[in-house]
C-alpha cells in the first residue's frame, strides 16, 4: 500500500497519519472481548422467536397454550401483548413488532417466548400453534410496479432531453440479493430496571435510533429505555434496522427478568434486511469522440415487505446511475417496490453498488463500440472538481480526483502471466488449456454522510482528567475501528498522546448517528475535532499559553502548566457536528442532495475456465480518494475487506429467493469468500485537501465495495467474451 501523502499533518504520537493498533485487538485475540452473544445477567432468561413459514398469509389463530405448557417457559407474547402503537421502521414506522392479522414475508416474527434456557426457549417458540390461511405472495417486483405497490418512485431529468448521440449502447442488467453475513449474528440482553424501564445491550449500528424505535413502538418515554453499546461481530448495514431489540425489551418488561436472545444463523438470514436486488435498463449515447451525450436508465429495486431504507437506497442508486461521469443530458427513473420478498435495506455501498455494475458495463460497451480502451472512454468523461454532478446538478466543490485515480491504476504494475492456482480450487477440475486471463476496470462514486435534506449530526465529548484524555461517544463500533480513530483525532488536535475512547449509552450523550454511509470518521470525527479544538482554545486562554504537548501547557516553548496539573484541573467539552446542509431533490431530481462524495477505481485480473465457467480472481488493484488517511493501516483494512465483499457479490454471494422463500439461509449454501478466494490487493490512497471531514478526511468504508464488483465482472467479460449482464456471475453465464 502506498499513499500520495502530499499533505503535512500535525505530528503527535499515536495521532492522525499513524496506525496505532486498536485498543480492542488484544482482548479479541485472547478470546476475552465481550460480544453481545456473550452477555449474561443474574436470573437471566432466554428469548426465542416464532416466525412465519409463509411469505404471505392471513393469521387465523394463534394458540400459545402448547408453548406455555412446557416446563421452564415464563412468557409467550403475541401482537395482543404489545403495549404501544406496535409499529417500527428506520425511515417510517410501517413494520409490526409482531404480526397482527397478516404475515407479509417469510420469517416475519409472530410470537416471542422467554424460558429458563436457550433450548427450552427454542422448543417453546416452535410449539406456538399458528393457523394460517396461505395467500399467493407478490414476489415479482415488476408486477408490483405495475400494481403500484411501491415505496418510492424517483424521477431525474437534467439537460436537453432531446439531445442524442451518434454512438448508442443499450443493456439490461440484474443484481442478485446479497447478504451482509456478519459473522456475529443478532444478539442482545435486556435488563428491566424495576421501575418500568429497561437497559438494552444489543448488536447495533445506531444506539439512539434503536432506543427511539423501542420507545415509540411500545409507547414508552425516551428516558425509560437506555441503549448501551455491546460488542458487535460485524454489521455492514445489517444492524442499522432493529430486529430483536423491541422483542427483548417486551420480554424483559413482561417477565421482570433479564432476557437474552441470540439468533442462529438461518434465523439471522431472515431476521435482518439484505442488499436490494436490482433490475436495470440503461441506454448510453455518445458522440464520435466518445463524449457522453445522454444517459437514460430505469431501475427497479425490490424493497420486499417493509420500507426499511428502501427510499434512500433507491435515491442513491438513481443519483449514481450515470456514474462518476460528465453527461449533458440525463433521464433516470427508479422504483422501489413492495412485495412479499424478504425486506431489503442497508448494505455497504447502499444503492451505489447496483448502479455501478450497470453503468460500468455500459461504459465498456461504449468503449467497444468506439474501439477505445476502457480507461480512455472513462478519462474523456471523468468528472472533475468544479463540475456539476450529472444527475442532480450539484456543484462538486470538494476534491473529485477521478482522473488521477484512472491514471494511477493505469500505471500500477500488472501481475505476470504465471498461474499459481487454477480456478475451481481444491476440486482441481480446471485444465490449464481452458483457462483465459481477463482484465477489467470499474469506477464508482458514493455519497458520504446522509443525503437528501436529512439533519445529519453527531455529538462527542472530550474530557481531560487525572487518568488522561477520554473521548466519549454513543457511536457504534462494529469492527471498523472508530475506537482508534477518535482517539487519534483528539490526540492530534490537543497535542496529547494519552487518549482513550469510552463508548457510552444513550442516556449519557446525544446521538452520534448511524455507523453507516462511510460517515463516522467524518461525523463523530468532526465532533471530536470540534470538541478538542474548543478545549484547546479554552486551556490556552485560561493559562495564557501558546501550545500544548505531553509536557503540559507551553508558552514560548517553556512548560507553564505541567501535564499532571492540567489533567487534574478536569476539563470537559461537548460538541455537535453537522455537515453542510443538503437539499431534498426537486421534482426533476435536482438539488444539492449530497454533503460530500468519494470516488474510487478498481482493476481486476481474473483467470476464467471458459469451459466450466469457473473464476479465480487473481488480483484487484485500487486507487481510492480518501481525503486524508487518518489511520493508513485501518484504511487498508477497509479497502481489502471491502474489495472481498465486492468479489463475493461478483462471483458467489446470493440469497436465492423462490416465491418469497429464502432457499439458502445458511453458510453451506450461501457462499462467502474464503482465504483461498481472496485476491492480492495493491492499494493507492489518493490524498487531497478540501473535504469537510476532520483534517480533510473522507469516509473510506464503502467505495472499496462499489466498483470492485464491476471490475471483476468486466474482467470475466474480457476473458469469456460473454455479455455478463447479471451478478453474481454463475458458471452457466460463462460456459453456456
Amino acid at each position, binding site marked *: 500500500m502506498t499513499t500520495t501523502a502530499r499533505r503535512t499533518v500535525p505530528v503527535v504520537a499515536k495521532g492522525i497519519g499513524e496506525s496505532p*493498533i486498536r485498543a480492542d485487538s488484544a482482548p479479541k485475540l*485472547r478470546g476475552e472481548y465481550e460480544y453481545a452473544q456473550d452477555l449474561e445477567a443474574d436470573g437471566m432468561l432466554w428469548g426465542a422467536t416464532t416466525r412465519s413459514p409463509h411469505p404471505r398469509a392471513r393469521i387465523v389463530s394463534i394458540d400459545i397454550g402448547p408453548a406455555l405448557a412446557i416446563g421452564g417457559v415464563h412468557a409467550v407474547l403475541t401482537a395482543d401483548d404489545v403495549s404501544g402503537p406496535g409499529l417500527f421502521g428506520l425511515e417510517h414506522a410501517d413494520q409490526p413488532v409482531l404480526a397482527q392479522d397478516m404475515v407479509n414475508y417469510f420469517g416475519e416474527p409472530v410470537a416471542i417466548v422467554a424460558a429458563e434456557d436457550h433450548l427450552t426457549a427454542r422448543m417453546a417458540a416452535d410449539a406456538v400453534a399458528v393457523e394460517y390461511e396461505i395467500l399467493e405472495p407478490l414476489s415479482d417486483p415488476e408486477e408490483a410496479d405495475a400494481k403500484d405497490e411501491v415505496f418510492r418512485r424517483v424521477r431525474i431529468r437534467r439537460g436537453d432531453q432531446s439531445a442524442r448521440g451518434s454512438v448508442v449502447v443499450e443493456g439490461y442488467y440484474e443484481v442478485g440479493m446479497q447478504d451482509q453475513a456478519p459473522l456475529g449474528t443478532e444478539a442482545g440482553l435486556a435488563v428491566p430496571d424495576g421501575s418500568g424501564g429497561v437497559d438494552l445491550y444489543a448488536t447495533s449500528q445506531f444506539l439512539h435510533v434503536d432506543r427511539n424505535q423501542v420507545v415509540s413502538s411500545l409507547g414508552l418515554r425516551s428516558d425509560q429505555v437506555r441503549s448501551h453499546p455491546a460488542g458487535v461481530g460485524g454489521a455492514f448495514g445489517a444492524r442499522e434496522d432493529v430486529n430483536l431489540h423491541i422483542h427483548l425489551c417486551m420480554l424483559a418488561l413482561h417477565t421482570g427478568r433479564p432476557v437474552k436472545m441470540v439468533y442462529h444463523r438461518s434465523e439471522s438470514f431472515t431476521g435482518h434486511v439484505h442488499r436490494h436486488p436490482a433490475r436495470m435498463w440503461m441506454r448510453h449515447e455518445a458522440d464520435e469522440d466518445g463524449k457522453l451525450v445522454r444517459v437514460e436508465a430505469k431501475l427497479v429495486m425490490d424493497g420486499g415487505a417493509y420500507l426499511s431504507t428502501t427510499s434512500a437506497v433507491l435515491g442513491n442508486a438513481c443519483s449514481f446511475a450515470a456514474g462518476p461521469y460528465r453527461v449533458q443530458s440525463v433521464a433516470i427513473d427508479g422504483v422501489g417496490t413492495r412485495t412479499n420478498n424478504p425486506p431489503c435495506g442497508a448494505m455497504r455501498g447502499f444503492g451505489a453498488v447496483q448502479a455501478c455494475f450497470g453503468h460500468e458495463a455500459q461504459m465498456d460497451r461504449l468503449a467497444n463500440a468506439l474501439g477505445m480502451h476502457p480507461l480512455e472512454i472513462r478519462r474523456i468523461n471523468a468528472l472533475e472538481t468544479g463540475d456539476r454532478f450529472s444527475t442532480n446538478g450539484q456543484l462538486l466543490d470538494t476534491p473529485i480526483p477521478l482522473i488521477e485515480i484512472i491514471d494511477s491504476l493505469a500505471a500500477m504494475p500488472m501481475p505476470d502471466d504465471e498461474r499459481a492456482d487454477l480456478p475451481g480450487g481444491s476440486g482441481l477440475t480446471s485444465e490449464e488449456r481452458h483457462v483465459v486471463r481477463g482484465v477489467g476496470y470499474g469506477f464508482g462514486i458514493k455519497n458520504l454522510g446522509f443525503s437528501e435534506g436529512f439533519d445529519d449530526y453527531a455529538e462527542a465529548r472530550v474530557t481531560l482528567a487525572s487518568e488522561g484524555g477520554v473521548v466519549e461517544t454513543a457511536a457504534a463500533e462494529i469492527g471498523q475501528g472508530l475506537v482508534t480513530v477518535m482517539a487519534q483525532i483528539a490526540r492530534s488536535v490537543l497535542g496529547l498522546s494519552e487518549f482513550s475512547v469510552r463508548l457510552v449509552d444513550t442516556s449519557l450523550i446525544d446521538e452520534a448517528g448511524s455507523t453507516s454511509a462511510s460517515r463516522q470518521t467524518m461525523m463523530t470525527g468532526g465532533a471530536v475535532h470540534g470538541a478538542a479544538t474548543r478545549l484547546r482554545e479554552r486551556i490556552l486562554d485560561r493559562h495564557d499559553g501558546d501550545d500544548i504537548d505531553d509536557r503540559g501547557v507551553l508558552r514560548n516553548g517553556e512548560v507553564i502548566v505541567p501535564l499532571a496539573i492540567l489533567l487534574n484541573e478536569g476539563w470537559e467539552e461537548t460538541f455537535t457536528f453537522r455537515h453542510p446542509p443538503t437539499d431534498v431533490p426537486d421534482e426533476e431530481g435536482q438539488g444539492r442532495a449530497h454533503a460530500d462524495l468519494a470516488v474510487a477505481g478498481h482493476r481486476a485480473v481474473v483467470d476464467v475456465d471458459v469451459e466450466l465457467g469457473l473464476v479465480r480472481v487473481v488480483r484487484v488493484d485500487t486507487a481510492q480518494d480518501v481525503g486524508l488517511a487518518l489511520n493508513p493501516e485501518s484504511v487498508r483494512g477497509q479497502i481489502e475487506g471491502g474489495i472481498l465483499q465486492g468479489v463475493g457479490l461478483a462471483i458467489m454471494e446470493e440469497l436465492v429467493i423462490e416465491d418469497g422463500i429464502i432457499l439458502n439461509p445458511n453458510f453451506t449454501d450461501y457462499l462467502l469468500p474464503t482465504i483461498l478466494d*481472496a485476491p492480492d490487493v495493491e492499494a493507492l490512497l489518493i490524498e487531497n485537501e478540501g473535504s469537510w471531514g476532520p483534517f480533510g478526511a473522507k469516509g473510506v468504508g464503502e467505495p472499496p465495495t462499489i466498483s470492485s464488483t464491476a471490475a471483476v465482472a468486466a474482467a470475466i467479460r474480457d476473458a469469456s467474451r460473454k455479455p455478463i449482464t447479471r451478478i453474481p456471475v454463475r458458471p452457466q453465464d460463462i460456459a453456456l
Partner: protein
Amino acid sequence: MIITFRLNGEETTARVLKPRSLLDVLRNDLDHPGSKDACEQGECGSCSVILDGEVVCSCLVMAADVEGSELTTVEGLSPDGELSDLQEALHEAGAVQCGFCTPGIVVAASELFRSNPSPSTAEIKEALAGNICRCTGYGAIIRGLESLAKARS
C-alpha cells in the same frame, strides 16, 4: 451423563443431559465464551478448538464425545494474559477488525505453527481455508502470519 476431559490443561467435568454440541457446553455451561458461535454447521471456523491435536469445529462435536480427551480453546493459548508470539504477530499486522473470527483464526494458526514452524504462504492459506473472516479480506491475517513464519524460521 457426566463427562470428564482436560480443558486447557485442567481436569474438567460437565453434566450433559441433552444431545448438545461441545460449543454449546463450552459457552453456556463451562464459562468459556472465547469460541464463537457463528454458523452452527462447521462452515466458518469461528468455534475452532484443538481436540486431541486436531483442529475441529466444536459446533460439530457432540459434547459427550470429548470424554477422556485433551481440549484446547482460545482461552488456553494465552493463559497468563499475555499475547503469544502468534497473537502478537496478528496484533501488529492489524489483523483484527470485528474480531468474531479471530479466536478461530488464532486456534487454527496455532496448530499449524505447532506442526510447521515456518509455513509457506500457501500452507498458511490452506490451514485457514476453513476460517471465514468477513471484515479484513484476509490480507492482514496473511501478512501477520507470514511475519511470524519468518521470525520463527
